Structures are given as C-alpha cells and as structure tokens.
C-alpha cells in the first residue's frame, strides 16, 4: 500500500474537560472520498475541524494529525479547503463576492489582484454561477442559499487545496438544491483529483458518493471501512441501528428526489 495522504492517530479532543473525541485513528489515501457519519453531537464537526486545524481556542487536543502526502505542514486555504454548513455564514455580507474569492487566490498563489479577479471569475464559472464576470461585483445577499454555497465552494477552492473538508455542506438547503450541490462537489473533486472528507447525516448520500465511511458514536470511531462493506455488512450494532432508522425514515424522500431529478434534466 502507498503511504496515506492523511494520518490521524489517537486523537482526543475535549471542550472544557468534556470529551468530544476519544482515541480516534483514521487514514485517508490521496483522492479518497471519506464520509463521516453519526448522530448529532457525536463529534463529526470536531473531527473535521481538528483536521482542518480550526478547533476553537477553548478546545484541548492530544494525538497526532500528519500529512505524509505533503512536504510541509498544511496551511488553511492553501492545502485544505473548508466548506461549512451555513452558506450565509461563510461570506462577508458587505464585500463583493469576487473580492472574497480573489483575496484567497491572491493570498495563496502570489498573483496580482487583477489576475486574482480573473481567477475568481473562472472559479465562479466552474461552480456554475451564470454570467460570472458581471456577478463578481455582486454582494452575498443578492444570491440564493444554494448559490451562496457555490460561491463558498469557489472561495474554498481558490487556493488550489489538495484536501477539501465539507461539514454538512447541504443540510441547510432544500432537497432539490442539495442534490445539485452534491453533484457539483463530486464533479469538482474528480476534476481536480481532490481528497475529500465530508460530514453528513444522510446515509443515502454517503452510500452514493463515498469510497470509505467512518461511523462516529459519542466521540468514538466505532466502525470504518469501504462504503459497500460498512453499509452492506455493518459490524457494529450502532451502525446497524443507524442504517435501519435511516431506511424507515428516508426511503420516500429519496424516491421523491429521484423524480425531481429526472424532471430537471
């Protein structure tokens, strides 16, 4: 086996003496798409933020997070792009979106402001914002939630990162939009050969898009492995329970989703 892109060993994180992650170890290969699933409060975001190097100040952590695939320690924005759950909270409300994307490109790629603006327009085009050149000068409030998440995606990719971390990037959006965003994310990851870690509570989504699944339960990694294996022959009772509740709750919605998608095409 080749050496992993990312190696997490014995990671412990606690907030004010309350543990949020206990002894989590996980490897991620280059180009792999990992889905982290688990119920709310199980520590998914904490894991994602620990890897991104963005834990809040009050968090205490131990263990190691290594990037053998990188020659240097990773820089936020340049090596790791992050996409958050709330698209409105990802953008500065009073700065033109073109400038918000361009400042990332300028910071990490050492290019001029004009070149950075051109790159911003290209990125907007890549995330399917229509008329990207003229939209450079628009402000976040002029876009819908889904569009804002696309713009946030453009900003996250502007530094050409090799790892993209997405923390429930679609759960604040309605279902139709969710699907479009996920498709786009998938496409961008494949195009650029990115490694992807995405947090979700949507098992259907994980089963469609992930190569590997990691299941978190009360801050512990209870199961991890290839998607087909984890969902097909779950070993841990918690994973089984998760799959069962999901199917009973979500089957009708998945059908509905499929219909809408057909009509959309």
């Amino acid at each position, binding site marked *: 086996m080749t050496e992993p892109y990312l190696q997490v060993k014995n990671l412990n994180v606690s907030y004010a003496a309350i543990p949020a992650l206990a002894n989590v170890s996980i490897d991620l290969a280059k180009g792999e798409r990992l889905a982290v699933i688990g119920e709310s409060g199980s520590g998914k975001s904490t894991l994602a933020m620990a890897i991104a190097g*963005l834990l809040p100040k009050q968090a205490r952590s131990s263990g190691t997070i290594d990037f053998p695939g990188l020659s240097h320690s990773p*820089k*936020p924005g340049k090596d790791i792009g992050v996409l*958050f759950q*709330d698209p409105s909270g990802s953008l*500065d409300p009073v700065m033109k979106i073109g400038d918000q994307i361009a400042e990332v490109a300028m*910071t990490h790629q050492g290019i001029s402001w004009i070149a950075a603006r051109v790159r911003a327009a290209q990125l907007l085009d890549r995330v399917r914002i229509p008329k990207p050149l003229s939209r450079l000068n628009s*402000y976040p409030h002029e876009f819908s939630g889904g569009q804002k998440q696309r713009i946030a995606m453009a900003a996250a990719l502007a*530094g050409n990162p090799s790892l993209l971390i997405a923390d429930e990037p679609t759960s604040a959006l309605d279902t139709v939009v969710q699907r479009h965003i996920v498709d786009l994310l998938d496409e961008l990851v494949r195009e650029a050969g990115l490694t992807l870690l995405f947090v979700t509570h949507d098992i259907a989504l994980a089963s469609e898009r992930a190569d590997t699944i990691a299941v978190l339960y009360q801050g512990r990694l209870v199961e991890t492995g290839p998607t087909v294996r984890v969902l097909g022959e779950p070993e841990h009772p918690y994973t089984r329970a998760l799959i069962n509740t999901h199917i009973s709750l979500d089957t009708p919605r998945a059908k509905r989703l499929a219909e809408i998608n057909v009509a959309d095409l």
Partner: protein
Amino acid sequence: MPPIVSFFLRRLLGALPVLVVVLVGSFLLLEAASGDAVDSYVARSGAMDAEQMAQLRQDWGLDKGPLYRFRAYATALAEGDLGWSTSFERPVASVIFERLPITLLLMGVATALAFSLGSFLGILAGASPGSFRDRFLSIASLAIYAVPGFWLGLVLIVIFAVDLRWLPVGGIETIASGKSGLARLGDIAAHLILPVASLAMVYLVLYLRLMRDRMSEIWRDPFVSALEARGISRSRIVWRHVARNAVLPVVTMLGLQAAAMLGGSVVVESVFAIPGFGRLAAEAVARRDTPLLLGVILCSAVTVIIANLLVDLAYGKLDPRVRAGR
C-alpha cells in the same frame, strides 16, 4: 428623476411633520416670552405712546388671535423671513447666515477628526478584544467620556495658549493680521485646533467604544471562521472584514450626534470667543432676543435634518444591503 434626487425629496417631505412640530413649539415659545414684536420695536426705535403702540399692534395683526398670529409667523417663515433681531438690529436671517459657516466648519472638522481617529483607535482596541491594548483604551476612553468639552477647552487654553504659547487663546483668526491666501488659512487652522479638540474629544471616544464593541461582536460571526479557514491573514481580517462591518453602526451614530454636537458648540464657541452660530444662541438668551433665539432653533433643526440626510446617503453607499433595498 435620478434616484438620488427623488430620495432627497422623499426624505425632505418625510421631515416636514417634524419641522411643523418644531415650528409650533417655537411659536408657543414666542407667545410665552414676555413682550411682543411691538415692544421690541419700541425698545429699538425709541419712545412711542400707548395709543401709537395699540395702532401698530392692530396694523401688525397682533390683536387678532393666536391662530392668526401663527399663520402670519408661518407665512413669513415660508418666505424666508426669520424676523427681526432686536439686539443686532438686523434681520435674523442675515445674522444667522453670517455665523453659520464658522460653526459648520468647526463641526465638520470635529466630526471628521472624531470619526477617523475614533474609529482608528477603536479598530486597534477591537482587533484583539480583552488584550492589554484593548483594556487600556477602554479605561482611558471611559475617563475621557466624562470630561465636559468646555472645561477641556479651558484646560487646553491653560496648557497650549497660556503656558506653552503655541496656539492662540481664542477667536477664529488674528484680527487685522493683514494675512491672505494660504497664510490666512494657516492662521484660521491654528485658531481651530483647540476648539476642535474640545468639541471632538467626547465623540472621539464615543466612536472608539462603539467601534470596539461592535468589532468584538463581529469576531463571533461565523464568516470570520470561514475567512480563517481560507487562510486570510489576520490583519486583512481585522481591517478589511471585521472593521469594515463594524463601521456601519458608527456611521449611523454620526447623524444622531449632529444635534448633540451643535449643542456642544454653544459652550465651546463661548470658551474660545468664536463668533459662530452656537455662541449666537447664548447671546440671544443673554440679550433677551427671542426672535433671534427662535431663528437659531429653527436653523439648527434644519441643519440636523440635513446632516442626517447626508449620513443616510453615505450609509447607503457603505452598506450594499441598504443600497439594494432602496
């Protein structure tokens, strides 16, 4: 009609009811003051017997009822006639327009200074809330906030004009200096330094604190973590994002403070013997010149309304969300 013009017109129309209330208030004040226009006319032009005075009252409609008098007052105002100043023996309007520019200059410079320096220091404090620098600026600003401007003016005079002799004691320019052009401008600027400092200091620390408090709120906004995740440098986050967002409410305050600053100019101009609009108000009261006082009140209301209008315009330019909503 260009949108800016219609915006102006709409706002002026919206301010009309407020002006009417001010007008009614002024009229009531005029009625409450002892003596009427005939009394002051007599005081000005010399002796007149009771019969002549009654005749004059009849001619001027002063014997009619308060409603009639109010209409006459309002009509005169609408024609730009602010009445006759008994103490200056000139039309009120001409006295006011002679004095207003100096005060507008004083207030304009003081506002610019307070806003720019206050926000700058506020950004320094708000860049890292809770730091030593932040706490030092907070305590200093709280102490300065308690200092009355007129007293600060006296202290500054003692230090910079009496002891150090760096700056003039008062006035707006050296009398009969024979200076012109740039030299005269420099002279006026030297005269403005102390009064501007006295007038601006309170607002400077007010804006400092506003900016700082707003910034410490904005640091908790999720977009800041998003910027950190994108690797944007700390200084860029402070200046281009957090401060840029925090300055908006401070700009709103500029308009609200216009009235207070105009009030403050009354004492500061008295301290520095500046022949401005503010001191005119004190003079009007001291000389029992009611028409002049009313003129001053009306004009300051209009000044405040216009100042707020300008601030709203500036705010619209600064906040893209408002710009779109208009």
